[in-house]
């Protein structure tokens, strides 16, 4: 009886995660601490924003991660729908909480940072607002996973929601821009624009971003393995009941 399993292999994943996880976690912790310490202690104040510029080392990486985690979930959802890889469906489920926390950090640091500049805790600025919408998408995604007990159905439904949600998230991103011009400052790092944040700021920023990315990878490995264990326990218990 070939189980549907030969399309995907938790075995390989568990083995690789056993090897990779310790290394990635150490690397992530080191890079993250290095980046934050460097950014917090060893960078001068900005002439205009004073010391609040230090918040950049949390706001920009978390904002970047919030968007890229959703993109990763989109890719894994597509892999699940096309190749029926169980691991990728569970990886998407594992990544969602990390994504929502990153979005919360981006929102919180954005609001706190904006407070002295714009004089209010929350300004309906397009970029912050689209993160709020992204937060709602994450919430709906996680809630849908929790609401369904059959793992395969849950994986299918959440994958479709993720794909449809991505289209509407991009639409909302444009609609929000249209709806209110922004207070947000220009992109600190952008590939196309030539002027970037001064080097003394951007180097620790890159380190912080690397730290966040590594942290995300480590967490996804850990949480995906947890999901695999959980699902396997559920399956074995169901089998016991069948007797």
């Amino acid at each position, binding site marked *: *009886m070939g189980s549907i399993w*030969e399309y995907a292999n938790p*075995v390989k994943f*568990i083995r690789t995660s056993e090897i990779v996880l310790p290394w990635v976690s150490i690397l992530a912790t080191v890079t993250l601490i290095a980046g934050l310490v460097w950014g917090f202690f060893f960078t001068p104040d900005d002439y205009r924003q004073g010391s609040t510029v230090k918040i950049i080392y949390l706001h920009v990486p978390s904002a970047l991660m919030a968007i890229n985690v959703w993109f990763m979930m989109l890719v894994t959802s597509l892999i699940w729908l096309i190749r029926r890889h169980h691991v990728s469906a569970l990886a998407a489920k594992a990544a969602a909480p990390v994504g929502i926390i990153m979005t919360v950090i981006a929102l919180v640091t954005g609001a706190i940072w904006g407070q002295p500049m714009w004089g209010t805790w929350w300004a309906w600025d397009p970029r912050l607002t689209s993160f709020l919408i992204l937060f709602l998408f994450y919430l709906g995604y996680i809630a849908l996973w929790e609401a369904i*007990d059959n793992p395969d159905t849950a994986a299918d439904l959440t994958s479709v929601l993720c794909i449809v949600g991505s289209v509407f998230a991009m639409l909302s991103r444009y609609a929000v821009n249209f709806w209110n011009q922004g207070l947000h400052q220009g992109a600190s790092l952008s590939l196309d624009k030539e002027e970037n944040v001064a080097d003394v700021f951007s180097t620790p920023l890159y380190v912080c971003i690397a730290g966040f990315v590594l942290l995300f990878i480590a967490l996804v490995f850990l949480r995906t393995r947890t999901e695999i264990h959980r699902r396997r326990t559920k399956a074995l218990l169901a089998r016991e009941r069948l007797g």
Partner: protein
Amino acid sequence: MTLTVKDLTISRGGIPVLEGLNFTVEPGRALVLRGPNGVGKTTLLRTVAKLQPPVEGEVICAPDAIAYAAHSDGLKSTLTVSENLHFWADVFGTKGIDGALKGFDLEALADRAAGGLSAGQKRRLGLARLLVTGRPLWVLDEPTVSLDVASVEMFADTVRAHLKQGGSALIATHIDLGLGEDVDVLDVGPYRAKPGQGKGAFDGDFDEGFL
């Protein structure tokens, strides 16, 4: 319009339930499925009716050949009997519901709201819908539930007539429908999925994969 099932494996809630099923249903014959409750008869019927993809193996039959009827009859209580039947007739593109009404002795109730029918009458209306579909292969799940003896006899006559016209039926039921000689019986008990020897053990001692 034969239905062929080749070494079929089906699962419910992700857990394999029946495996290695092989049978065919020739036109003019009926196949009755027996087996304890919960063994997977309903799941098998749903897989045959293409409501559910099989885990392994395949179900081969002509497209648009299957009329499926399950426990719930799909009747709208605010619509009358004839409106319900007319709706299904239009959906399946067949004309006229008189045959169905006569077949299940429902002419008298034609204009009564389906909500006002007894359980037995509702069941007869649900089965009358089969006649309206004009589909050769009937896939029925416990059709005679809440039917009195007379109605069961009426149902058996309809099935016999259906078989005579070259139709076929796959029925999961405990009651002997007395359909005479052109009936085969398949007990699905022995096809129960054994806790498998799936490939891809986790590490060393896990003997199954992910289930």
